[in-house]
């Protein structure tokens, strides 16, 4: 057997590299077609992508344990709406408290998801489908703090300014928050015992259990992290758009999952890197902003391109895996 690995298994090991190539190619094409695109709109892309980026970090944890959460955007809307209503009623005026509250609400819903999914043995898709129905339905209810949606007038000026108008090293706090969440997730997943256990549970749950990992606790933890990140994203959404209602971000959870899958995260669990997820999320954000500027087809073509890209990304992963397995067998003369 040759000492150096085949190019295919190298690509399998580093699934984010081809994606980086595609991203660079895409940017090059857009930049040629629309001169000065990158210089003009990189900041906008980062701003628009950061909310999705935060949710992607949580989604990564859930996908790693082989589960899925499609209630993230519902949790986003719910956490944002509850915190916004409280601010509108004058209960909370402190900006920092808003973020803490959002994370707490999201984490609570995520924990319920996780408990139902692991201890109740209900399939994650069904649980999160159900909770997304329930929390979205709760938003406009009258007994839940009155108002049926949150308007800009109900928010304090300090809160609205907090993420957009404060800058550090030329980047608004919104982007810094996303970077912070990415860094924390990277540290957690790579350098803590619990973080490595997420990978262990996802890749081989029986082996992990033999080694003494408490499967259900890890699953609940992953869902809690995902819920917390969605709650944080809800407050970021509220600070960025200054409004939130029942239908906010409907269907966007698919793009969160899409960004993760584009970034090479395996949906069967156990494989996925934070770098890949960051590139995937950037890719989705760039497609959102670049394709309309290229003026091909009608304005709705971005949906189509995102769909095709996701389809090809997941199929390419499988094909690469198959070729790599075949090469391994050929290398051992089987």
């Amino acid at each position, binding site marked *: 057997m040759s000492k150096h690995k085949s190019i295919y298994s190298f690509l399998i090991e580093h699934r984010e590299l081809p994606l980086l190539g595609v991203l660079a190619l895409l940017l090059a094409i857009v930049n040629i077609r629309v001169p000065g695109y990158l210089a003009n709109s990189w900041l906008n892309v980062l701003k628009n992508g950061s909310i999705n980026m935060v949710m992607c970090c949580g989604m990564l944890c859930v996908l790693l344990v082989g589960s*899925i959460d499609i209630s993230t955007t519902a949790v986003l809307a719910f956490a944002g709406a509850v915190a916004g209503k409280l601010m509108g009623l004058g209960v909370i005026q402190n900006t920092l408290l808003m973020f803490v509250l959002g994370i707490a609400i999201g984490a609570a819903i995520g924990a319920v998801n996780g408990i*139902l999914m692991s201890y*109740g*043995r*209900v*399939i994650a*898709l*069904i*649980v999160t*489908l*159900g*909770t*997304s*129905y*329930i929390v*979205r*339905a*709760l*938003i*406009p*209810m009258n007994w839940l703090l009155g108002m049926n949606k949150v308007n800009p007038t109900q928010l304090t000026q300090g809160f609205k300014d907090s993420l957009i108008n404060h800058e550090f090293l030329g980047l608004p706090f919104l982007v810094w928050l996303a970077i912070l969440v990415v860094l924390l997730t990277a540290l957690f997943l790579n350098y803590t015992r619990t973080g490595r256990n997420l990978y262990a549970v996802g890749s081989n749950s029986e082996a992990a259990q033999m080694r003494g990992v408490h499967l259900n606790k890890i699953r609940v933890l992953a869902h809690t992290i995902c819920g917390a990140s969605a709650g944080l994203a809800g407050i970021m959404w509220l600070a960025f758009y200054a409004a939130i209602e*029942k239908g906010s971000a*409907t*269907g966007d959870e*698919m793009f969160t*999952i*899409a960004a993760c*899958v584009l970034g090479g995260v395996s*949906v*069967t669990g156990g494989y996925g890197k934070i770098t890949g997820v960051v590139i995937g999320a950037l890719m989705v954000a760039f497609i959102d902003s670049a394709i309309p500027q290229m003026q091909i*087809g*009608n*304005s*709705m*073509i*971005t*949906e*189509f*391109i*995102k*769909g*095709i890209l*996701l*389809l090809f990304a*997941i*199929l390419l992963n*499988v094909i690469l*895996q198959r070729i790599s397995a075949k090469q391994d067998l050929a290398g051992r003369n089987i």
Partner: protein
Amino acid sequence: MKKIKDFFTSWEFFLVILLAVVCAVFYYVDASRVAAGISRRPVFYFANVVRSMRPYFLYSFMTLGMMLILAMGDIDISVGAIGTLSVVTLGVTYNNLAVLGGMNGAMALTLSLMACLAVGCICGALNGFLCTRFKELFSMIITLATQLFFRGFSYLIIGGETLTFKDPTFRSLSALNKLIDVAGIKVPVSLPVFLVFAVIFFVWLHMTGNGRKIFAIGTNRSATYYSGVQTDKIKFWCFVIAGLMSAVTGIFFVGNSSSSVKADIMDGYHMYAIAAAVLGGFSTDGGKGSVIGAAISLVIFGVVKFGLGTLFGFADSAVNLSVGVILILSVLVPNLIEDWQNARRVARRRAETAAANN
């Protein structure tokens, strides 16, 4: 004796009881409202409930398609997008043939209906092809990607605009949304059509060998494969039929939505289809469920929505809330009951062994 016990512990029997309880509660509330003088006459009586089922039977066809997929242990979340794409095809084809091309209306409508059904089949076939060729991937992630793809495709065809048809030929589709007289009761057209489809599906799934094979695939795919069943072929055709049923749902939907077509009309419909099928006893693990259960659960959803809407004055969101709660509980409760039964069996066996040892 065993058979009778099986009947009383079956999921369908539970659903019938649930339906009866829901009806009793609503009937009581309705009667007390009349007695208290809040409303002038009762609204919760049989004919009225049947009449009001109209909007809720729209996605019943989609539920039938979803049943097949769930019975095989797969899931298809692209059915709503398939419905949208076929409806958009219907609208655009008719627009090009009759409105712009000047073709005879009935002819154009027939052609575009055929195009609509064909698109449903093709989309289903794409799902089936990908799910059978790329077995490493969950069908959920494949249909997630194809959902984005189909949705994007309908946006590509029609853009953000809305096509509205005024001519009488296209408007004749709204006959699908009318009420007809059956034995003195006004019944929405979709109900008898659904019953016909449901009987066909019942005979197919529960009385033919082919139908049993679908459940066998859901129970243990490898065992079924090695016993000589062409699992891939069956799976492929089930996805095609699910796509076809989405297109049928789409046709009924156009009849309902005042003959206008746009690119997001059926977003999120897969959720209702999955919810109804899961309450009907189908599980995403596969191998379980019956057509009768799915039909009863559709009726339950219809009654709950009607009752909450008219009697309690709840808005749409409260109805969604009940859908979410029912969805989770309908999977959670059987699991808990099973756990309890297992624990009881273990305790009994322990007691028996202890007694034997003494």
